[in-house]
């Protein structure tokens, strides 16, 4: 069989040849860098995802070599396939930037903006998107849509008010598990992710819905309120797991494993799915073989306070007077925070006032 001819596509004046059937988004991601449009609902590892959030809108200034007319409207790049000779404008088009600003405003209409409380803050796609493209203030004057809080089991916490209806978790649950127990109920403005009849989600790969969620709607209950993302240090680690490949990212503080997630690539997508056992039950350093610290972009808040290449200053006073320096204050003598005998990471759910009683 002869090789299929490749299509030449130009995104922001950078040309690349891609196979027919590739979407504009994937072609732009092959070029990489800033020309790749942001995506909130599209997930390359989930079939049929995309086309819902409209953040990846791009302008097609030339349809193809045979029909060079521009497309009349902005198109969703995750759903539009490339044509030969297509010219796409993303960051070079003011129309796209303006439209994206509008999309962000719409995504944030009903979003509670409770980032100080939310566990996703610091690694939230919506936070990054609105930081890069959004307005500073909202023009919305009405009450935001709220939902009754719902308990969907001991491991995953659902905050429906934060949801942006990207459907990623529905696809993830449908494609990773054989029996899907949650989905979209109701329609339109009332649509919500839910489990019918308060069923607890129970499947060995269901924890991945936490990782695919671009906002804080689905978060890890075992990590809930334990620490902020940027105060924990990401480490790549692996273990022999009978159900999954066991390649994970540990979020550590000292020797405590606070959270286990799958490893994410540069587009914020999970590289390999991990099982619930790895995610929720292996919170000990001895369970894992640690490969080393994850490389975090300098611009990310997660790299804050994580000093690399530090050198310890040599103690010289003993050479002068022959005595070791005296510790004047051991912080654990007086401080109640990070007490050596209390391990927050070992508590099942979020800490409560009763967990701290009698230990002050």
């Amino acid at each position: 069989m002869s090789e299929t001819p490749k299509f030449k596509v130009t995104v922001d004046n950078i040309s690349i040849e891609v196979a027919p059937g590739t979407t504009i988004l994937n072609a732009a991601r092959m070029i990489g860098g800033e020309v790749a449009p942001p995506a909130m609902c599209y997930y390359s590892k989930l079939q049929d995802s995309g086309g819902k959030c409209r953040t990846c809108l791009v302008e097609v200034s030339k349809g193809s070599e045979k029909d060079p007319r521009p497309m009349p409207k902005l198109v969703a790049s995750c759903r539009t396939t490339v044509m030969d000779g297509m010219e796409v404008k993303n960051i070079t088009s003011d129309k796209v930037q303006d439209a994206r600003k509008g999309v962000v405003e719409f995504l944030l209409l009903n979003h509670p903006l409770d980032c100080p409380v939310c566990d996703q803050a610091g690694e939230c796609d919506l936070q990054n998107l609105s930081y890069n493209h959004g307005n500073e203030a909202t023009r919305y004057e009405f009450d935001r849509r709220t939902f009754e809080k719902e308990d969907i089991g001991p491991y995953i916490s659902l905050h429906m008010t934060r949801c942006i209806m990207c459907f990623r978790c529905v696809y993830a649950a449908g494609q990773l598990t054989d029996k899907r127990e949650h989905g979209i109920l109701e329609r339109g403005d009332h649509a919500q992710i839910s489990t019918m009849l308060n069923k607890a989600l129970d499947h060995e790969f269901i924890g991945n819905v936490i990782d695919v969620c671009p906002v804080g709607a689905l978060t890890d209950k075992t990590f809930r309120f334990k620490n902020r993302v940027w105060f924990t240090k990401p480490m790549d680690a692996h273990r022999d797991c009978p159900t999954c490949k066991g390649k994970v990212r540990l979020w550590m503080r000292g020797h405590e494993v606070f959270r286990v997630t799958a490893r994410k690539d540069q587009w914020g997508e999970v590289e390999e799915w991990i099982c619930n056992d790895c995610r929720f039950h292996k919170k000990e350093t001895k369970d894992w073989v640690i490969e080393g610290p994850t490389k975090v972009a300098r611009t990310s808040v997660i790299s804050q306070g994580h000093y690399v290449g530090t050198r310890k200053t040599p103690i010289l006073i003993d050479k002068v007077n022959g005595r070791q320096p005296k510790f004047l204050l051991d912080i654990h003598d007086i401080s109640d925070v990070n007490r050596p005998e209390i391990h927050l990471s070992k508590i099942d759910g979020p800490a409560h006032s009763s967990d701290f009683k009698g230990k002050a």
Partner: protein
Amino acid sequence: MEKLTNRSVQVDRSPMTVSERMYLPGIIKGMGITIGHVFKKKATVSYPEEKRPFSPVFRGLHILNRDEQGRERCTACGLCALACPAEAITMEAAERKPGEENLYREEKYAAKYEINMLRCIFCGYCEEACPKDAVYLTETVMPANYNRKSFIYKKDDLLIPNPNKQG
């Protein structure tokens, strides 16, 4: 060599004149300056009875604020600790239980909140970073003490008294 300022004077090494050798005119001149200072306005104030006025941007001791209903505003988001260049602030968060709504404003609150005043440089970045209007720097000067342990300020030291519980 070029002079740094135009105030420098070459030292006069010539032999002293008769009036200079008597020293008396020099002493009178010096005493004149000394006595003149007695009648000038004092540069000092008698602290602590008298206090200097503070600049309106003075940054002193921290407080943790409460809202109108006396609930703690702090939600342990960690932004003050993130902004702190001296890494003086530490905290541990907890989830609000049903029945504690009158104590804490949000579903998450700071179970432990500590500021190490030995580390604090009073830059006020924590106040700027706070999204919940919870931490403020007051006009109170940090009190001194003899031991180091009293400089770890905990929630009891920082929280303002509950306005609803008084009276």
